[in-house]
């Protein structure tokens, strides 16, 4: 098996100048489209989460014609809504030493020195504008009694820079962006296509010419032409089947673009969140996140003895292993996400797991309740305790919570340059769908920041730099034969899937696929395991092609058919993920290769050989994509080892 390294290396189109001046330099030199000419351009935005809704609304305000697509019934359902904790911004309202440079550095370090410096600096710069914009739109952020904005602190930072709206920050930000989009829809500046899913991307003469979509209510496949297309279609965490993502989250839009020539970067960078409610039965559909903030007062432990099935209260203190406090004395129960997750996995793998399926660890509040009283604990975490009890039927005031890590966010995604353009000219990727800002690990409260940064303050500037060249030139419309060809391919695909007459539904295959990816490309990866995954996934894929059963027909609302198509794309993504994880022979952030660790079991980076972005080109065989490299050049910061001892 040979790896092909294509040359030349990828050009990130990073502007000239010192890191702090790059964004200003870009804005000073980019091509603009004058206000009267903007209405001559049509832009398609796929996805209406934070990145998509904010981009569509802003582009429409600027005067472009915008078509927005969502597969949900309403733009407000996008999964951005589920984010709990908050959004970071370098406002320094606390006067505690925060600055744009501090947020920039924290994000680079949090990402384990695997992100693009210029993008991260821009993110930190525009973070302050996001808070201003959202407040102007009426997002009810938490306030102090004097009426000023409140902040909380979050992991990976020594300052308080996180803005929040109770435990529903994502919901309030999304509703803010959705309302701004709704205003543009009401004004007729945006046409909304709801319950419509992207099924392919059309390229003509080397540029993205539009998309092909399927109407989920009647199965009709249609074409849409535009000057530029933005994919803001989220991450691929549901590749694991069980994750904290919403049920409908999928990789289809990004993967279809990848199949048409967009490179896919760092697919092996996935984030596993340590505090989720463990799986309770084999039919479980998703995992629920319990906010990281619980670790401020909860103590994590497992029985010292493997296979101990006694009730937690019957296990005496000296037979308990408070392993985070033991292994990471200075950070204790607040050790970072990747480190806490791996420690929990080791305990469960040792047979020390707790609960009916022995698949969890305890998060115990007994000490906190003893010290602070149940009322204070209720005030701090009441809503989370209630949610836990609703799901598990156990009262965490009396019995310790059971938690276990779960897939939560994906740092990898479509490769984009500084202007957020993919390797297909005219096709952009924003938000979780791109790879650009979080490196190998994302910090808490930074996903919301990046989605809104891309949609509000980056794309609206960078897109004109591309569009300007097309002024008063004709572009192909949907009567072009390429649209007809790709439409026909999409119809054939859905026809083939709808006529699958094997014995098992798509969920069965998705679950089995997820188990393979979780076992071999989850929290800990090894060469042997990844090799195994790269033979097991194609074998299961063959079975999927042969034995899938889809009922309900090709036309009309058919959720089974939708799942079948999305599962098919997860199969190919899974193969490329494992290939990427295999070829990245180092450990960094969320990518932990057991062969590359320090004596203490921590991630061991190899900056000499792997300080680069791995961008994969589709070749027709997802297990053998072609690797392209973007070297990561650090001008402002220098490599350091992350330590949390």
């Amino acid at each position, binding site marked *: 098996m040979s790896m092909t390294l294509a040359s030349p290396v990828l050009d990130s189109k990073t502007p000239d100048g010192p890191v702090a001046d790059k964004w200003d330099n870009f804005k000073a030199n980019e091509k603009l489209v004058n206000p009267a000419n903007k209405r001559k351009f049509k832009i398609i935005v796929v996805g209406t989460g934070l990145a998509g809704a904010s981009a569509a609304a802003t582009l429409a305000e600027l005067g472009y014609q915008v078509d927005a697509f969502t597969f949900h019934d309403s733009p407000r359902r996008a999964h951005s809504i589920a984010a709990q904790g908050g959004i970071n911004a370098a406002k320094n309202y606390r006067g505690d030493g925060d600055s744009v440079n501090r947020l920039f550095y924290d994000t680079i370090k949090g990402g384990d020195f695997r992100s693009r410096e210029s993008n991260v600096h821009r993110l930190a710069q525009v973070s302050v504008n996001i808070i201003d914009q959202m407040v102007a739109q009426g997002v009810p952020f938490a306030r102090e009694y004097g009426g000023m904005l409140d902040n909380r602190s979050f992991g990976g930072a020594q300052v308080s820079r996180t803005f929040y709206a109770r435990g529903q920050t994502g919901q309030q930000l999304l509703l803010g962006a959705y309302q701004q989009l709704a205003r543009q829809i009401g004004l007729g500046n945006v046409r909304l296509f709801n319950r419509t899913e992207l099924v392919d991307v059309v390229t003509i003469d080397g540029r993205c010419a539009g998309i092909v979509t399927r109407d989920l209510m009647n199965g009709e496949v249609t074409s849409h032409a535009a000057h530029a297309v933005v994919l803001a279609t989220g991450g691929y965490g549901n590749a694991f089947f069980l994750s904290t993502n919403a049920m409908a989250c999928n990789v289809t839009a990004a993967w279809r673009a990848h199949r048409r020539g967009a490179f896919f970067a760092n697919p092996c960078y996935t984030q596993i969140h340590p505090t989720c409610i463990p799986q309770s039965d084999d039919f479980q559909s998703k995992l629920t996140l319990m906010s990281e903030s619980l670790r401020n007062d909860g103590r994590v432990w497992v029985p010292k003895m493997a296979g101990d099935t006694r009730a937690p209260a019957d296990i005496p203190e000296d037979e308990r292993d408070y392993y985070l406090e033991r292994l990471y004395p200075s950070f204790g129960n607040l050790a970072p996400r990747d480190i806490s997750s791996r420690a929990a996995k080791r305990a469960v793998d040792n047979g020390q797991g707790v609960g009916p399926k022995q698949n969890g660890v305890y998060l115990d509040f007994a000490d906190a309740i003893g010290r602070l009283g149940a009322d204070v604990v209720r005030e701090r975490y009441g809503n989370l305790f209630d949610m836990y009890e609703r799901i598990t039927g156990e009262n965490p005031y009396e019995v310790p919570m059971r938690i276990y890590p779960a897939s939560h966010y994906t740092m990898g995604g479509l490769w984009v340059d500084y202007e957020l353009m993919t390797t297909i000219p005219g096709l952009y990727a924003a938000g979780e769908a791109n790879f650009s800002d979080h490196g190998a690990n994302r910090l808490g409260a930074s996903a919301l920041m990046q989605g809104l940064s891309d949609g509000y303050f980056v794309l609206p500037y960078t897109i004109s730099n591309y569009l300007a060249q097309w002024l008063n030139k004709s572009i192909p419309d949907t009567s072009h034969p390429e649209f007809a060809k790709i439409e026909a391919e999409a119809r054939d695909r859905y026809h083939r899937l709808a006529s699958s007459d094997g014995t098992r539904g798509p969920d069965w295959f998705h679950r089995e696929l997820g188990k393979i990816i979780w076992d071999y490309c989850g929290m800990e990866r090894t060469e042997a395991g990844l090799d195994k995954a790269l033979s097991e996934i194609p074998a299961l894929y063959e079975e999927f092609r042969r034995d899938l059963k889809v*009922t309900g027909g090709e036309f009309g609302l058919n959720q089974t058919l939708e799942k079948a198509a999305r599962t098919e794309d997860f199969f190919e993504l899974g193969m490329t993920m494992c290939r990427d994880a295999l070829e990245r022979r180092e450990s960094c952030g969320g990518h932990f290769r057991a062969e590359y660790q320090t004596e203490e079991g921590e991630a061991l980076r190899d900056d000499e050989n792997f300080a680069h972005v791995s961008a994969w080109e589709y070749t027709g065989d997802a297990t053998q994509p072609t690797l392209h490299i973007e070297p990561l050049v650090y001008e402002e910061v220098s490599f350091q080892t992350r330590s949390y001892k």
Partner: protein
Amino acid sequence: MSTTLKNLTLKIWRQDGPNGAGRFDTHVIDEITDEASFLEMLDILNEQLIENGDEAVVFDHDCREGICGTCSLMINGQAHGPERATATCQLHMRKFSSGDTIVIDRSAFDRIIESGGFITAATGGAPDANLIPVPKPVADAAMDAAQCIGCGACVAACPNGAANLFTSAKISHLNLLPQGQAERYQRVENMVETMDEYFGSCTNHGECEAACPKEISIDMIALMNSDYRKAKVKNRKALSRT
């Protein structure tokens, strides 16, 4: 610890498309653990149906964390089922000792928001966030209203099919905040009038509040009515000046 429910009988309302004739189909699940959520129970039923060559039951759902508002089931005659302040997706089988399901067209909610459920603030021109102080009690009250997930349970529970709780929650959220004052009266008029095009009238049954998974208070309806009444006077005055 978990127990199982045997011979769970489901009577599910199904129809082929918005104009198709509807019917109740009966399905039996032999055994199900009470650890399963209500929607996982439907997943299991669907896998069973697909393997038998039958069409799966279509239902709306997404986040399964009670926040996105996509799920919309009437279970035993109650929107979101029997547990208070709980959306369908967080309801578990242990709360049962069976419902009609269907995908609902809730786009009228989007039309209401489009008519005024926003604060006009184009991207880019916002002043520093702390230049607009918001007293904590005001921010808290606005947040109480803003929690609405737009699921539509309030309309489903209302004998009149009124959307007053949904509409008033958005109006209250924005009209309480200082940023929302400029468009306050125009907003309430436009939104109430759009609401009236699609939905029935409120006669203060309070079923909406009881069904709401986010415990939105019907006080919001009083706030909306009060602003609507004022708007009728204010806007006439404004018009008379022109």
